[in-house]
């Protein structure tokens, strides 16, 4: 896939690459412990030692941003992977089964879709309580229906193709039909939706952490850093702008990457 003729893809890949590198390597090369409290440096402004300053407890903001990148990317990739797996199995099975099974499954999907996704995540996060696994469950509940619909729609249009007909006439079981012949053809559209989905989950996780329903302090999350920074907006605006810029840049990177992928796939097809 060429990057040169696709500025969105190039820009998105560059930004996402930087974010991913920061998430993978940042905590290893960061000079400060993101959990180390030093009240003497409380609300210290950006300096040569602390490039993004220190928070109210004297913890280095840059180190916390880098740890937050690891958490955000880790959670969002996990959620998108689980949503994709769950949605693909449910949507794909409904499409292959057809008939009343398809109707029943899609009516259930419609009911879940009628419920606002973020509200569902808030309600689940509130009931399940704080914790990484509970957060992933709450966010996955928000996203799987989109993949179910996408996969079902794509399979309904693909299942009448000649190669699928040939596999069916050779005795391929529904499961083999679904996973061996149909799913590989969906890679393009699913990759585009997943890329946009990662950006959406980064925002949703940050929002839940901001509301006190996601990652709780002292574990650094961009969302809980934003929330903590609000109290010091007047004296230390950098505590809010730093995580805000990190979130915005990440989302922009994934949106540009998704745009670029969609364009590249459209041109290929």
């Amino acid at each position, binding site marked *: 896939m060429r990057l040169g003729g696709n500025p969105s893809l190039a820009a998105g890949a560059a930004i996402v690459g930087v974010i991913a590198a920061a998430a993978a390597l940042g905590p290893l090369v960061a000079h400060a412990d993101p959990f180390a409290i030093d009240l003497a440096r409380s609300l210290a402004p950006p300096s040569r030692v602390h490039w993004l300053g220190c928070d109210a407890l004297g913890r280095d903001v840059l180190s916390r941003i880098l740890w937050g990148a690891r958490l955000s990317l880790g959670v969002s990739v996990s959620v998108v992977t689980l949503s994709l797996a769950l949605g693909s199995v449910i949507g794909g099975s409904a499409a292959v089964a057809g008939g009343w099974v398809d109707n029943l499954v899609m009516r259930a999907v419609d009911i879940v879709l009628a419920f*606002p996704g973020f509200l569902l995540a*808030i*309600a689940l996060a509130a009931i399940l309580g704080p914790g990484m696994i509970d957060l992933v469950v709450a966010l996955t509940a928000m996203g799987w229906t989109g993949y179910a619909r996408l996969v079902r729609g794509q399979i309904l249009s693909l299942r009448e193709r000649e190669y699928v007909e040939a596999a069916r006439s050779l005795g391929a079981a529904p499961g083999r039909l679904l996973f061996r012949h149909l799913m590989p053809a969906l890679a393009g559209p699913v990759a585009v939706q997943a890329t946009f989905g990662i950006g959406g989950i980064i925002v949703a996780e940050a929002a839940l952490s901001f509301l*006190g329903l996601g990652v709780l302090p002292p574990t650094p999350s961009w969302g809980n850093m*934003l929330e903590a920074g609000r109290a010091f907006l007047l004296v230390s605006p950098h505590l809010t702008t730093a995580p805000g810029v990190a*979130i915005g840049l990440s989302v922009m990177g994934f*949106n540009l990457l998704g745009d670029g992928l969609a364009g590249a796939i459209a041109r290929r097809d």
Partner: protein
Amino acid sequence: MTRYLMRRILALVPVALGVATLTFALIHLVPGDPVTAMLGDTAAPADVAAMRHQLGLDRPLAAQYIGFLAGVAHGDLGESISAHEPVTRLIAERFPATLELAAAGLAVALLIALPLGTIAGAKPGSAADMGAMGFAIVGISVPHLCLGPLLMIVFSLDLGWLPLTGRGGFAHLVLPAVTLGSALAAIVARMLRQSLMRVRHADYMRTARSKGLGESAALIRHGLRNAITPVVTLVGLEAGGLLTGAIVTEMIFSWPGMGRLLITAISARDYPLVEGCVLTFALSYVLVNLMTDMVYGIVDPRVRPV
């Protein structure tokens, strides 16, 4: 038209029932004991039993479900554990503020998106188009979680033009509304641009130009009416999201709406209030989708049954 509207309203009933059922299932079927969560692990068994009886949780699940639906039908959502007031009254006090914020966000989104999208779609490839789409990329990418505090820093703290938090007159509404509506503005501007670029090559546009109409006049008088239809759908799909997006915006700006009520209820482990707020948000979302269908039927007569 009346038959179309009646059909859409009747279709609302099973959807509303499904949403209410999902709300009930969230609170009652998800693992974890809400009474223990409310009273704490060290609560006396007698207190736990008394609370369970007060909330009706000692009844069979089916009876609880029927009671819940009957309560919803009569507008009775129980009593708040923390405020000791009917949940319905607490929600009625706060809902207008959320509605005001969501409506203002929608107005801001349309005020920005319609001119921006029209200019970009009328002159694709121009500097105005590039600028509009640059705004769209930034607007879609910067979530209101980040935008709100940035606007507060610039317009309240640095310039002192607008109040920082709270609800009051028009000035208090500006920053929260811009925060909430900017992402929708970006999405709508982009959609309108694409839609206008598509209709520019339609046969009726060629006819209008050959009759002597200028490009801009042809686009506004004939193209916009057709280009606006997918935009109406998009606005309808996203407008419901303004209600739930208001939850975070209300927390940022200390706006006294239902979003803040929900988060406060969650912190207080006030499950009846949480359930009432979640249900109200969800049913409002469904109603907004119904209104979108109605508006769509008015804008595009082709979707109405003959």
